[in-house]
């Protein structure tokens, strides 16, 4: 099911991220000079200043660091209220703010292993695939 979402930031700096998502790949920039992995995207490396940055897929796995629930409707009706956000520390090091998938509040515990999946969404710019995170171990149907 397609979910309506607030608008992405788009442009030459940002589009490669969403193009990777279209292929169900989570990709981040990697600095060719110092190996730093910035997120959100940068034009020059925030660690060494190099402009030699390349988009490369990451494993899409990480662990849960923190979580919060929006009760105040900052997006004025654009999101069904309330909703959860999670902070994932990717295995490659960067932290990634996302939404939980197939996870309830009772599942949230620091260090929980997580894996990326892609939710079909649309905003004013059109359809896109949004990286969200669920349990690393697939959820088995209740018998």
């Amino acid at each position: 099911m397609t979910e309506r979402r607030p608008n992405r930031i788009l442009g030459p700096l940002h589009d490669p991220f969403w193009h990777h998502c279209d292929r169900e790949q989570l990709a981040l920039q990697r600095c060719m000079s110092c190996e730093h992995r910035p997120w959100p995207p940068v034009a020059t490396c925030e660690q060494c200043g190099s402009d030699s940055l390349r988009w490369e897929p990451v494993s899409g796995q990480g662990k849960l660091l923190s979580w919060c629930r929006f009760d105040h409707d900052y997006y004025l009706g654009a999101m069904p209220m309330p909703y959860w956000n999670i902070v994932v520390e990717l295995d490659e090091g960067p932290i990634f703010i996302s939404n939980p998938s197939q996870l309830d509040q009772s599942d949230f515990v620091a260090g929980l292993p997580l894996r990326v999946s892609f939710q079909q969404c649309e905003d004013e710019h059109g359809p896109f695939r949004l990286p969200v995170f669920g349990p690393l171990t697939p959820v088995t149907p209740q018998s």
Partner: protein
Amino acid sequence: MAYHPGQNIPIPETRYRDRYAIVGVGETDYREDYRAAREAAKSGVQHQNANTVEALAERAFHRALNDSGLGLSDIDGLGVSFLYGGYSAGEMAAQLGVAARCTLACSGVMAGPIPQAVSALERGECHTIALIYGVASQSKGRRFGGQVHQENLAPSSYYYHHPWGWSSQAAHWALAWQHYRAQYDIDEHALAAVSMQLRAHALMTDHSIMHQPLTREGYEKSRYIVWPLHLFDICLVNDGAVCLIIRRSDQSRDLAKTPVLISGWGEATVTQDKMKNLVVHRMSDQFQAAGQQALDMAGVTRDHIQHFECYDASSAHLVNHLEGHGFAAPGETIAGYERGEFGVGGRLPVNTAGGMLSGSYMHGWNHVAEIVHQLRHEAGARQTPGVETAMFSLAQTDQVHPLVFRRGEPT
């Protein structure tokens, strides 16, 4: 380490220590203005006497001038710090009738204007400078968070995560606090102790906005903004202005009030991995680096600090300040609040006028004004007895900028 010292302000140097002093302070009527704006909003009619930032600034300026005992002709420098637009320093000087030899455009929040003024005074650009901060966000109906943003101005974490529904300053503090809770196994409603203490301070302060007592039950029943943060964990939004008048300390001895010496400052800015640094490390490297700069410049140690004011965008952020600067052991801030250690009469009174949570949202200028009152020993019921040295700590999501002040010779 991921910070740049001295990026936006003069490098802290001991030659500036105690050389300049705050000799006048003026604030607007936070509580009355807040109530008037609320009444106007409720009645649905256009607020006839809506505060303009210039009118607020003028009021604060005249109060500061009167407080200092100086005359209009004594002021020959003017810095303005209008957060969301307003007159330039030159236009404001003309409005006030100040013959300004020097004008400064200061950053909006209390992150640099005082060192910048000291620098201008040291260069001989002026003799006595008035710094004015003003904001009319309540009257303008300014909203915080959400899709509206100025891409070139906002820090990236603030606006980048819209497709996931993540936005707002409050959400930054919610994530940092939730991480801390998990790390130290802290109760969901533990911040009640912080919010209640600041409310108790506001009740001792005539001009502070919130004037109803806050109980634990009242805190727990208040709505969530971004769980686990309640309404009362998030700062106020209100109109107001603050003016500080600064000149050389040795020319401040015969004025109306005890001078408050500018003793030290520091600065550390996060330059990479901003969210990780905030959520996981709570900017501890930046607090330690900038705090040490300020203490070293002032020639004091942390143990000399008897009164502490810090930028409380959220109650959760006080935890970051207190543990970051080493005023509380890691994981111990809440227990300290529950024991009354950070209240008036405790071992280190913090945000004694109610801060931005219960006092007034003047972006750190309210905190410096309170330090002036405390160091002059004129803070009434909330006075820290015999306070000689105080510290202010500004920290937003990506910068830390502390100031150290000392009480000058009484006039």
